[in-house]
């Protein structure tokens, strides 16, 4: 059974390339440009979430905090991705499991996903 990864970023180009990279690794990838995808997530929860911090009109760290305070979603690893290296601390603060700076090395992306799916 393929592991399912949900990628949320407001840029479709980013979603496309991450999907490409991760599918090549053998994962099942779902993408979303908004945080709306989290509303009915408990029906079919992913095994890992890659979440952009600065979504248009939404704050990824707040979404992360919400996921981590909900018993049904708390167990899902969340990796924040951001263009701002300075947000690493924010990531720690909102309970995220990992942090990835954009742009990233492909190996860094593969490693962090693998690490948190293990």
């Amino acid at each position, binding site marked *: 059974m393929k592991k399912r990864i949900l990628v949320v970023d407001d840029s479709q180009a980013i979603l496309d390339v991450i999907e490409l990279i991760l599918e090549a690794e053998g994962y099942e990838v779902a993408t979303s440009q908004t945080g709306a995808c989290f509303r009915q997530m408990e029906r079919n929860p992913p095994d890992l979430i890659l979440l952009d911090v600065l979504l248009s009109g939404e704050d990824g760290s707040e979404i992360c905090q919400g996921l981590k305070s909900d018993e049904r979603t708390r167990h899902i690893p969340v990796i924040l991705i951001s*263009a701002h*290296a*300075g947000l690493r*601390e924010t990531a720690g603060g909102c309970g995220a499991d990992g942090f990835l700076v954009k*742009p990233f*090395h*492909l190996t860094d992306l593969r490693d962090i996903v693998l690490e948190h799916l293990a």
Partner: protein
Amino acid sequence: MADGKQAGEQLQFQAAILRYVTDSVIVTDLHGTITYWNEGACVIFGYSALEMIGKTLVVLSPDLNVAQHVDNFERILAGHDYAGEWQGRRKDGTTVWLDVKTTILRDTEGTAIGLIGISKDITARKEAEERLCQSEKLFRALIENMDGGLGLTDVNGIITYISPSTTRMVGFLPEEFIGRRVFERMVYPADQEATERLWARVLEEPGKSHALEYRSKHKDGSFLWIEVVGLNLLREPGIEAIVWNYRNVTERKQLTEEVARAKEQLEAILRNVADGIVVVDGSDRLIYANDAVAHHFGLPTSEAMLASSQANITHKHDMYAVWDEWGRPLPACERPTAQAFRGKPAQALVKFQSKITDHVYWSLVRAHPIFDEQGQVQYVVCVYTDLTERKEVEQRKDHFISMASHELRTPLTVLSAYTQLLRERFVAEDRQEAAQYLSKMNDQITKLTRLVVDMLDISKMQAGQIDMAREAVDMEALAREVVESLQPTTGHHLLIEGEARETITGDRERLGQVMMILLDNAIKYSPQADTVVVRMARAGDMLTVAVQDFGIGIGNEHQGRLFERFYRALSKKDKTYPGLGIGLYIAHEIIQRHAGKMWVESNEGSGSTFFFSLPA
């Protein structure tokens, strides 16, 4: 002989009467020998009859003018009685003034037999006269020599006396005044009405002083400012005049006018400068504020500011939240005003936020102490340069840069990811050359990303939004890491010299960024050289890192400004070096946030060494 006897008896009889007269009666023979000396003479001169009869008058008058005496004597003998004032000497040596009448004494046949002198003691009167004369002299001297002038007029204003000092003041002679009416032809036309009113008031109110400042003509045609005080003493017995005191106040008047003019000028300047200016005294009271400062803080006028005790500087922290340039709360004791009160000029970029309206005011506050004679700070002058608008523009720009940087990062991320994917594919297909091209592409994307990050850092640093991590950093290991990551991208040989086994506390990523910036610059500005050296040494409790290149160097004139944002030290021939002028600014800021120092030593043409030191 019977006649002689009769005459003698008569004489004795007369003498008996004369004995009781208080006036001095002295009789001499024709040779001047005293033959009679009455009781009055005893009292006046202090000599008894016994002592004086048979003596001459010389005893009474040691300073006798003989010629005059003889002359008088002759005239008396010729039948002219003498009457006059005469100064004699008492037995005790004191002077006595006498009113003397001398007449000839004849016997019954009419033959002159002697002189009879009757004298009245007028010493007391004489002395009073003398005193009066003295005091008049004294007053005259006083009046004539005093600085001011004095004049007297009668009830019609006709000048009866004018002191020489008055005439000296205006250059006229006393005789040019006497008999003229006071103020007549002497007053500046515009002041004539005032002098006439003064005259009327003085005349109307006896005993009361009235003063006026007016312009008086000088004989040389100029005008002087005179202060005159008129006092009507017409009813005062013995004076019966109007007394006028004059004082030349031209200098004072000119000085006052000059001061007033200077003050006006200064006021006009202070009113119209764009900077806000306040003056605070030693007890922290606001004693001056111009309109600009009132406007700066949202008040309609400086009066409103001065009137409101709330506007008092000391209370400002009640009305305003005060922050420093980087958005940290600025305690009252660290503000420029407080520093100036401690004796040193101070300045700071300060952000005020009204607690009532939430309005934000940015000011460059410069405070200067003003000392009293004891060297204590008496006042502090504070100049507020309104930077609100500039700050707002800066903030908009920083916000723009921040957004732009973020926007740029998305395509860079995508580009970088596809480049890496492609490279992996070429490697898998064993197309090494193509894979290498893509490696180089990705290096450039990394470089581009760093520029974008730098721009973002700058705007964050300006806004004070950068937080430094505090972790143990092995500087030597960090230097090796940076050098290793850079070495493949450059033809320069990057050397590390020296050892620094200590770790310091700081932000590893940021300190790495500093070394990256310095190494990047060293490589960039030494195209003809092939080596860049990184040296590390510990001195005292500071760890110093030096990055030395052997390139074009930096002129002295630029060295002081190198660490300013967007500053570029380029002469015309160096135009070909691209750059944004942000690297050193960022490096400097990062080192400062680590409580460290950064400096440069450089000579044009022989390379530069950039140093930074951090508390170890």
